[in-house]
């Protein structure tokens, strides 16, 4: 079975993220970047699927050449190869353009299943995997906390507030997995060394037969008009408890003054 897993380069979780005033896109160059944390679960799940049913795992990443360390990071966990879609015209792509480009790359790789993280920690829209499924005309199994592939059937437990739903579809399918679906492995030294020699195939928009004007800022279906930093919250009252919990009464008084109780 051919398993494709998508990864994205995002600013470090602890970094202050900001928009570049010039083109109103996320500034990824002035901060430390990492592989999107939820993608670690996606890579792990892809590897477990390979362990269960055999086959190969292909990493797919769309991003500038500076995303290469993210691809190497993913490969160091164990996938067999990677596909890197990069093209200057992709800068500023919105959800739909991103999904269309990923779908085109997926068609070339021809996997039996696509595994994605449920969201990236930068834009956090949770929309791309669903849009990829729509462009491919494939089932989208979104929000999996368990994934099983059983012959041609892809089955997930979809996380809900109170439990889960069991959903299934015929492959090929796009699956998005939530954090906590597994315990992602740490890359071993051997894995890190091996990742350096795993093949990474580069695709440009020309390779994918996508018109450069239909993606990036030029092809976006929405635009950022303006942005402002949120004014900082001011610290309010603080009550120091004497050790008997009596400060709880002051807090209750505060909650009552705001009509919560």
């Amino acid at each position, binding site marked *: 079975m051919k398993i494709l897993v998508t990864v994205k380069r995002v600013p470090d*979780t*602890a970094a202050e*993220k900001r*928009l570049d005033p010039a083109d109103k896109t996320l500034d990824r160059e002035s901060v430390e970047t990492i592989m999107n944390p939820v993608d670690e679960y996606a890579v792990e799940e892809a590897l477990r699927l390979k362990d269960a049913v055999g086959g190969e795992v292909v990493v797919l990443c769309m991003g500038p050449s500076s995303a290469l360390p993210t691809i190497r990071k993913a490969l160091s966990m164990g996938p067999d190869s990677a596909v890197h879609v990069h093209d200057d015209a992709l800068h500023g792509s*919105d*959800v*739909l353009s991103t*999904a269309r480009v990923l779908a085109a790359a997926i068609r070339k790789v021809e996997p039996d299943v696509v595994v994605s993280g449920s969201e990236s*920690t*930068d834009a*956090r*829209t*949770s929309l791309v995997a*669903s*849009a990829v499924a*729509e462009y491919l*005309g*494939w*089932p*989208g*199994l*979104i929000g999996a906390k368990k994934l099983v592939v059983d012959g041609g059937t892809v089955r997930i437990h979809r*996380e809900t*507030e109170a*439990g889960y*739903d*069991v*959903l*299934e*579809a*015929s492959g090929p399918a796009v699956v998005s997995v939530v*954090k*906590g679906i597994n315990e992602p492995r740490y890359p071993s030294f051997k894995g890190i060394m091996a990742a350096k020699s795993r093949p990474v195939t580069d695709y440009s928009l020309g390779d994918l037969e996508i018109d450069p004007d239909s993606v990036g800022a030029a092809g*976006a*279906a*929405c*635009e950022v*008009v303006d*942005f*402002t*930093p*949120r004014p900082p*919250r001011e*610290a309010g*009252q*603080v*009550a*120091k*408890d004497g*050790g008997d*919990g009596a400060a*709880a*009464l*002051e*807090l*209750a008084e*505060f909650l009552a003054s*705001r009509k*919560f*109780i």
Partner: protein
Amino acid sequence: MASILVLVEHEEGNLKKVTAQMLTKARELGEPAAVFVGEGLRSATEALGRCGARTVYAATGEGWTNQLTLPLVDALEAAADRADPAAVLVASTAGGKDAAVRLAARKGWGVLADVVDLDGDLLATQNVFGGATIVHSRVTKGTPVLTIKPNAFPVEESPVEPQVVDLGLVRQAGPSEVRMTEHVVEERGGRPDVAEAEIIVSGGRGLQDPSNFALVEALADALGAAVGASRAAVDAGWYPHQHQVGQTGKTVSPQLYVAVGISGAIQHRAGMQTSKTIVAVNKDAEAPIFSISDFGVVGDLFKVVPRLTEEVVKRKG
């Protein structure tokens, strides 16, 4: 006046609050029209009318369930073909987003996620980077598809008698069809959903042991609140992931957020700093959570929280 389509979030005809919130907003933008998929049309129609829905487009019967995405997308598409709306509003829930973006991709329409405000020209406000930045954006291609954060808008009733329009659709399973074979309920405290709750009580590492989440749950129940958890608590396996608030969990914006034993690292603040009121209990006076709290108690949560719960119960009588 152009219509504004609102996808109805409901459980067997009982409207979720976010539906009433979206319809209230839709009245400012145009003529509200609801799109209803699944069972319970009759009781839903009455409630939708109270919120001002002039038309209810319905897809019901065999195969039409609001538990799966494609029926929602197909119904939205059919309703949009009829109504030629100025915008489509869908709740920013996991299922709502899945449907909204598939509709947008199918039609080539622009989509904006997690909208918290809209002006008359459909200029959308979004809180990004965990609420650190406020962005105004607009859709520039096709009919705007906008996913709306729960609790972004108030509810005001404006009763009308809705016209129910059966979309007359027949469900045909294609290759992208998803089937639901089981619906499993694991926990039922009768507590509200974290994503929609007006009050959230969250616990963190300061609880020291998973069993101490009982303190958080007791306070939550006294306040009628949902239970949240910090990343540290979830990563330690103390509480399920669907309750996690923060950068790698949910982003919430309740009326009241109570942080118990949570230091308030940037990744946690990113999930809750747009809450209207924030209060915190923590033993460390230097904890960053206090810098964004409207009221903080520096003290031992094992002493403070039970007394607070007791006092809340007493005052609520």
